[in-house]
């Protein structure tokens, strides 16, 4: 970590990441998937999350099925849903995130996000974290996400649950 590069703007560096074809991709020419303002929540260890906006500039539906980074042992695709008790709960997105042509998938705190499991070394504010997104057809997009301190995006948040100190 701490390998400081100087992008034009945090996050925006990855605004246009060309879709790269793997060997088994279809013969169709791909368009572009753009990733705007990617960022990752800082973490000493354990779990954290990454966010950003993925826009499908191709004329086919694409499906984000996996993500990987050297800074964590595993990245899961998470969605946030209302549970039966009226709260919000997060769970792995079965089958990945489909993005229709021209549509944008927003990964944000409290919503869909990339869950980094097993952070291998501290992610500090201002770090640049490389994340590789893999789509259903095997193609990949490389993203450089900027690390920001952020108090929200708690994996489980229950207001008042830790208020023993209070009245």
């Amino acid at each position, binding site marked *: 970590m701490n390998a400081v590069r*100087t992008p034009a703007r*945090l996050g925006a560096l990855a605004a246009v990441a060309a879709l790269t074809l793997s060997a088994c991709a279809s013969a169709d020419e791909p368009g572009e998937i753009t990733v705007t303002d990617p960022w990752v929540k800082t973490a000493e260890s354990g779990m954290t999350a990454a966010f950003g906006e993925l826009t499908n500039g191709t004329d086919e539906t694409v499906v984000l099925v996996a993500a990987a980074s050297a800074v964590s042992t595993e990245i899961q695709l998470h969605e946030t849903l209302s549970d039966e008790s009226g709260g919000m709960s997060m769970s792995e997105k079965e089958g990945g995130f489909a993005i229709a042509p021209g549509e944008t998938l927003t990964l944000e705190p409290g919503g869909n996000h990339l869950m980094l499991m097993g952070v291998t070394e501290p992610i*500090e*504010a201002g770090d640049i974290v490389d994340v590789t997104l893999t789509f259903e057809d095997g193609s990949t997009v490389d993203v450089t996400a*900027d690390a*920001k301190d952020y108090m929200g995006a708690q994996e489980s948040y229950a207001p008042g649950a830790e208020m023993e100190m209070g009245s």
Partner: protein
Amino acid sequence: MSSDATDLGRGLSRRRFLFGGAAVGAGAAVALGVDRALPPSRAAELDAAGLNGARTVAFHGAHQCGIDTPIAAHATYLGLGLRDGVDREDLARMMRVLTDDAERLMAGEGALADTEPELATVPAALTVTFGFGPQLVRRAAGSSAVPAWLGPLPAFGIDALEEQWSGGDLLIVVSSDDAVTVAHAVRMLLKDSRSFASLAWRQDGFRRAYGSEVSGTTMRNLFGQVDGTTNPEPGTAEFDQVVWATGSGDTAWLTGGTSLVLRRIRMNLDTWDEVDPTARSFAVGRRIADGAPLTGSRESDPPDFEATTAAGNTVISPVAHIARSRPVDSREVIFRRGYNYDVAPSGEGVSETGLLFASFQADVDAQFTPIQRRLDQADLLNTWTTPIGSAVFAIPPGCAPGGFVGDTLLA
């Protein structure tokens, strides 16, 4: 006990008095003519477009914003202390993050990971300016990179400095015509500083609201004094020479930057209240009413320090503020960008008021300190003013797109 009738009577006479005062004020405004006349009164107009709120100041450039850009109504000065162990690499990460925040916020967008991006949509000419104290520069590049003038000012006899308003490793100045915008930007920038530094002090200042008077009008401080008449004009060769620094060797990083002297000057309004207008004008060397020198008729008239009265004394006292603060050496010129402060008093006082004196100059030792030394030795205004805070910062140059503020030192 007074009866209701007596109270009513008092109220009426009080109102008559105020009306009388207003009438005199209006007459005075007319009599002033073109210099400080007000536009004719008119009905309040709805601003359907929020035009001023949408104004933006360019972030990138050879110089940082907030120095030669138009001065905004509100400014917050933040002094931060670096955490132990924060090193050059950490400082670069910090300035990248803060630069990105500043750039986005000044454009009227939320910062990256902004929890209240809705508050960012009204920039109202927001500027964010960064400055470095000596410790930051040392940690970044060693002692040889610290400009000779970067450090505490010499001790002055008039000073009663309080640590809570002095020093600091990192300066962030946030200014905007909108106080909500300032509050949001300050919060965002401090959140993103938290891993690297902690807040040592915060000083909030204000001037007239945008649109309340003609832009460029010299401000009045809370003594009522027209303050800042002889400032160099941004965009002129004089301004460039006064303000922008040229470093060389290990201080080359400062080229295109400048220095900031920030002094918190308490103004004792209770004792100033005891001084009648003539004596106030005598202390300043300018008429309080219109800012004209005692030897002239307009604010813009150059003072004549040689002119004498029939009794043979100079019209402008040799210990008047403007006589003591004028340059002796031609280099002794500074660019001031002051703000008023007015905060809750302590004890029995009814006010805690003063000036956030802020001056930019290429070289503190050559330009600012000689003036301050003269004021320390003698200045009639010292009777009512006390510097209670003091800080000096190096203001790095601006950055180009793709760079960050401080990259000439840290990249």
